[in-house]
């Protein structure tokens, strides 16, 4: 019998030419809570999805109880008694709790019908194990988020899991609910269940975790005992000690205010958002996933309706009621989600590139096809978009070239304020530099830029100032001077 419940050795994963995991190791002991730590995009989720059979690994080996395990799909993982509590719950909200828990493995009576009474009784017992004292017959949609999470845990326990993975379990819980969750985790540990715990919240880690494995950019950094390490060391490990980069040297920001947001509130997601943007400035917006960065951008352009707050454009109070309005007022938003919000994948390069600025191709009330072609050609050249022709469908372009089309279509339309949301996510190094150059030339010509990014290297490289967001508020507004480092930003981002 091995000491380890799980050993993942030299796990690598490639997605269409990009290595998202390279030689990552992870080991889990019986009764241990093992924290998996890393920035957005470090590869934590990918690693977990490989363990749970949702993704297949490109190379590497997984040992369970010392024996080589083959996990090709989620039901294999189920056989090895691996359970995962994802952030998004896998519950059918219109079914009662017990039906969810027994979905696909219902008890049946001699007639072959579902033995409802037995299912309910068993479900009730499982709920009691996690301290959830509600009827198993209740519909899932009547439960709170915390209760749903407990149902998921109870469901996992019912199949006698030995390995239970929590993916950011506390993101949506209140203090009391977190306490309760931690109690349950402690009990599970005492029963010999191995826990893998993914979280961004530094203060939780030491409370719940025994050891910690840090990933960065898909690479294994180290595994440490949490009681022997300082927070700042962990942060160092997450962001990397010696990141080489050159800061943008030229600055074009002057003191003309082009945008001021005052006390913007949105649902429960944004609180008291106030900031200003100057002409020629690149304002970096840092923060963890879920900190409200995208929501802030969408509230500014009127895609989401802010509950309160004012927006001033060039000092004039302006009401922006929808994205169309925002564009008229010179504010454009380049979504982080190119496929769903940025481009029409089934249309070609030309159609996508000219959509917002179609007015410029109109001649005597009709679209001039020649003019449109000329404009598209010019954009393709200007932004170095690699495409076989203007009629190439967007879906066949690489991520970097797709992003360049997104930028091209907005530059073609023209704007005073460009809001870039994760401008270089999923884009290779070469295209990344091109995008930086484009952003730089935009501010040089007098535009202003809000750049939302999870890549702190990028934030420090490009920004004049950095807004840091934490749980829907602005936790810091930092001048990007020589002293600003990733650790400082991350400290504000995790709210320490």
């Amino acid at each position, binding site marked *: 019998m091995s000491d380890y419940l799980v050993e993942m050795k030299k796990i690598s994963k490639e997605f269409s030419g990009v290595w998202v995991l390279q030689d990552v190791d992870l080991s889990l002991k019986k009764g241990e809570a093992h924290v998996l730590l890393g920035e957005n995009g470090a590869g934590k989720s990918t690693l977990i999805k490989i363990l749970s059979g949702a993704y297949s690994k490109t190379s590497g080996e997984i040992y369970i109880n010392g024996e080589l395990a083959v996990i090709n799909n989620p039901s294999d993982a189920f056989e090895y008694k691996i359970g995962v509590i994802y952030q998004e719950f896998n519950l059918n909200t219109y079914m009662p709790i017990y039906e969810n828990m027994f979905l696909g493995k219902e008890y049946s009576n001699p007639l072959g019908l579902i033995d409802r009474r037995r299912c309910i009784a068993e479900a009730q017992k499982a709920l009691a194990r996690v301290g959830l004292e509600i009827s198993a017959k209740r519909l899932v949609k009547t439960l709170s988020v915390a209760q749903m999470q407990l149902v998921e845990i109870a469901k996992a326990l019912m199949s006698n899991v030995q390995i239970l993975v929590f993916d950011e379990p506390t993101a949506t819980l209140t203090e009391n609910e977190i306490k309760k969750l931690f109690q349950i985790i402690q009990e599970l540990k005492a029963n010999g269940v191995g826990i893998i715990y993914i979280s961004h919240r530094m203060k939780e880690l030491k409370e719940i975790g025994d050891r910690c494995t840090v990933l960065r950019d898909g690479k294994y950094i180290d595994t440490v005992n949490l009681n022997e390490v300082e927070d700042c060391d962990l942060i160092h490990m997450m962001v990397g000690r010696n990141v080489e980069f050159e800061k943008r040297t030229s600055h074009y920001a002057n003191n003309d205010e082009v945008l001021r947001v005052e006390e913007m509130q949105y649902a429960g997601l944004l609180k008291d958002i106030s900031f200003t943007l100057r002409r020629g400035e690149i304002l970096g917006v840092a923060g963890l996933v879920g900190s409200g960065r995208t929501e802030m951008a969408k509230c500014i352009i009127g895609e989401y309706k802010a509950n309160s707050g004012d927006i001033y454009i060039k000092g004039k109070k302006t009401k922006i009621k929808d994205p169309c309005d925002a564009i*008229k007022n010179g504010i454009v938003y380049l979504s982080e989600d190119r496929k*769903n919000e940025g*481009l029409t994948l089934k249309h070609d390069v030309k159609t996508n590139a000219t959509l917002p600025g179609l007015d410029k191709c109109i001649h005597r009330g*009709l679209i001039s096809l020649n003019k449109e072609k000329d404009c598209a050609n010019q954009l393709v050249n200007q932004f170095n978009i690699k495409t076989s022709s203007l009629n190439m469908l967007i879906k066949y372009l690489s991520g970097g070239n797709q992003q360049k089309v997104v930028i091209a279509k907005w530059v073609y339309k023209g704007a005073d304020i460009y809001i870039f949301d994760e401008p270089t996510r999923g884009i290779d190094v070469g295209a990344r530099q091109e995008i930086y150059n484009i952003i730089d030339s935009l501010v040089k010509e007098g535009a202003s830029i809000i750049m939302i990014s999870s890549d702190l290297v990028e934030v420090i490289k490009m920004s004049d100032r950095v807004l840091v967001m934490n749980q829907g508020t602005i936790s810091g507004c930092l001048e990007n001077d020589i002293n600003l480092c990733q650790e400082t930003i991350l400290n504000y981002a995790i709210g320490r």
Partner: protein
Amino acid sequence: MNKTINLKSIQDLLKSYILYFAFIIIFVIFSVLNKNFLSVNNVLNIIVQSSIIAIIAVGQTMVILSSGIDLSVGSIVGAVGIGIGLLMIAGVSIPVVVLVGVLMGSLIGLFNGVIISYGRVPSFIATLGMMGIARGFGLALNEGKPVAGLPMEFEKIASTSLGGIPSFVFYSIIIYLIMYVVLERTKFGRYIYAIGGNRDAARLSGVKVKFIETLVYGFSGLFAGLGSVLLTARLNYATPVAGTGYELDTIAAVVIGGTALSGGQGKIVGTLVGALMLGILRNGLTILNVSSFFQQIIIGLVIIIAVFADNLNEKKNS
């Protein structure tokens, strides 16, 4: 060699090489099987028979391009027919009647559009509801009875011909020419494609999605109203059950024409070919004395095969 190049350019035009090919094959088969099929009179007859479906299908194409569906067009044909029939009996002048018919269709369509885009009711449901409402309205207007004894002048809309070519041919050509330009060369047309291709991206690109969508259903109603005027003129009487099944015929024409039900992809020329294809099948099979029961089976198969072949075509390209 020459032939492949020629076909290729047509493929670009129709965006569907298989559709064109099938069209030719079906045409040739019928011509060989029955010598009456290829006569000038019969070909003109096919076009006249197809033209009402073809005209209503223009609106259906716009709706499907925007990734919606309009099930109410057939009922609009019935309601508008009775409406204009009663007006004519009451002595309203022909031009006014035509205008009112088209306007009535447009208004019903716009109502659909408002419910769908501003009320966020799925197009399938909203137009399914309107399918019942408009049909019931048409029946209630004249207590379920047809309206006969329409003025002879009105019938001329359908019976006039120029140089031996019936007026319906000209109506179809003019409408298709105009709507081709609208869809290919105007912002409105481009926005319809953008909405059908990716609604969110279109909205974030500054397209007034709800407004455009409402107009699209308005156009669908407009062409249904126009189709009703033409049908009533051709039959020279109005019946509240006119247009029954037209919603399915127009959808079939659009789909056979290569427009994707998922929206954003397709060409209006394809719809014309699709409508003609339906017309050829019905006419040819009737000439060959195939019973109407088997006609339905064959036409059903053609619809499925058309989409199936289109999928194959798409896979091959990617």
